[in-house]
């Protein structure tokens, strides 16, 4: 009664083939990740030390540490966050909770999506034109951070909007029916339940901001600076640009040093990503509905 017919057997064979093929593709996908990480750790790890992280470069950058670049990247990210998070979250709240659905708001949404698609070098030129020249910030942390902020705004807006829209409409209606205003509803019910998604978006933004090179190259990141930046109007070194410099621009560079820089940069980004994953898992455990 349950003997396999020829058709059954053929289906079974096809299914096995596809499982193998799809699994193989997935395996191929992991391969470059493992290779990149493996090479970086293999070649870069010996360089990493307390001195490497916390002192400045010496001997024309062929020796010493990367502290100015590490600090610079952190500063750039922080200032960029200060600019883009309030702006992005506010815009997302407006678009998701207040704005009527008409051609104008649809145009705004389209513009945001397009902003996400603009190449980073174009953002860099915009940053030069707008912040360095027009607003007269000069090449500075401020100009570079604002450029990064503009570039990553779509990430924040889209993440925030999506987590706001994941809050069930019934919660809002229940609140409105109680006589709450839109803002009371947002503050007491919608935002507390969307905050996890918003945070995830922000962390993803951080990791993207930290790795960008083009937008900061002309707007505030310096090739080499003997001093640490004193204010947001100073230039700074940055890990991503430093990596570019030590890999291609400096003669007689010891082979391991660029790998060390790359390892620090990628660790920073991975740390941020795992933080976001951990946060998401922790908060999903407390999922409230």
């Amino acid at each position, binding site marked *: 009664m349950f003997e396999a017919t020829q058709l059954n057997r053929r289906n079974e064979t096809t299914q096995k083939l596809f499982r193998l093929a799809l699994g193989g593709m997935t395996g191929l996908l992991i391969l470059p990740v493992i290779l990149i990480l493996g090479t970086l750790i293999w070649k870069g790890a010996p360089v990493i030390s307390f001195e490497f992280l916390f002192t400045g470069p010496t001997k024309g950058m062929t020796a010493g540490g990367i502290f100015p670049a590490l600090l610079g990247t952190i500063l750039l990210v922080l200032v960029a966050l200060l600019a883009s998070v309030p702006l992005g979250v506010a815009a997302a709240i407006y678009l998701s909770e207040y704005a*009527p*659905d008409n051609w104008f708001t649809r145009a705004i949404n389209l513009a945001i999506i397009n902003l996400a698609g603009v190449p980073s070098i174009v953002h860099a030129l915009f940053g030069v034109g707008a912040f360095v020249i027009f607003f007269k910030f000069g090449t500075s942390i401020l100009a570079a951070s604002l450029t990064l902020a503009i570039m990553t705004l779509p990430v924040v807006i889209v993440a925030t909007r999506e987590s706001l829209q994941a809050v069930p409409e*019934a*919660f*809002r*209606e*229940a*609140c*409105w*029916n*109680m*006589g*709450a*205003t*839109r803002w*009371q509803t947002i503050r*007491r*019910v919608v935002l*507390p*339940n969307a905050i996890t998604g918003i945070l995830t978006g922000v962390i993803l933004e951080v990791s993207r901001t930290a790795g960008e090179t083009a937008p900061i190259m002309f707007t505030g990141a310096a090739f080499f600076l003997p001093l640490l930046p004193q204010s947001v109007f100073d230039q700074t070194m940055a890990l991503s640009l430093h990596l570019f410099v030590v890999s291609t621009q400096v003669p007689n560079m010891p082979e391991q040093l660029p790998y060390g820089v790359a390892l620090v940069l990628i660790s920073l980004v991975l740390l941020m990503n795992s933080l976001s994953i951990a946060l998401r898992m922790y908060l999903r455990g407390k999922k*409230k*509905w």
Partner: protein
Amino acid sequence: MVIAPPRRSVATEQPVKLGVTGLRIRYGDQTALEGVTLDVHEHEIFGIIGPANAGKTSFLKAINRMDMFNTDMHVEGQITFNGLDTRKVRNVYGLRRRIGVVFPLPVGLPLSVYDNVALSPRLRGEKHKAELDVIVERCLRRAALWDEVKDRLDTLGSMLSGGQQQRLTIARALSQDPELLMLDEFSIAVDPVTTMRIEDVLKELRQEVTIILVTNLVQQARRLADRTAFFLDGRCVEVGVTEDLFTGEVHDQRTRDYVEGRFG
């Protein structure tokens, strides 16, 4: 199509709480409900029965001015609450606070049980813990939920069982001190025992508030409602003393067919 109901209800000596005249509700070009004229009197339970898509929920939304939150929804005609035109009320938030709403599916907000009930008092500015404690206990007691949750007021409202959440929703509605309580098919997601408990609660509440009970259970309307309206396909077919609908004293054959279960 509108039939003037005979005004001979037990409750009709009471003043009119909610007056509806020539109500028409449409979403875009789609008319959801039209030609509704009826009065709901104080301290009565006013039932609304009818099959799906009859416009019952839209009716409740129009009363609560929810069209403000839905640009697609248009309401024409007049609705008065305590004799005041709800279209002309300046403080719609104040209006909504006097009207409690309970939804078909229980909405336990992802706040603690305590905060669920304290939300509305807090929205109107109550900050004193002692005062809030009193309100929370009173409302939970009146919704017949206090005994089950008094030891775990800080668990999330959304973690309660369906029946408990529905009573929590009622407690939350009561925390508004409403003059009018509107229930929209509250028993859909609730077991029969809880349904009976809530029905008992409603019978008691009638002393203090006016109740509009939208229900898809004809027998529930019969058990609870003083007068009942029958909505069908976006029209109000019949308004009358509930018992008349069941004894066949109706104006429209369709009402009899529906009540006797021949369709819908």
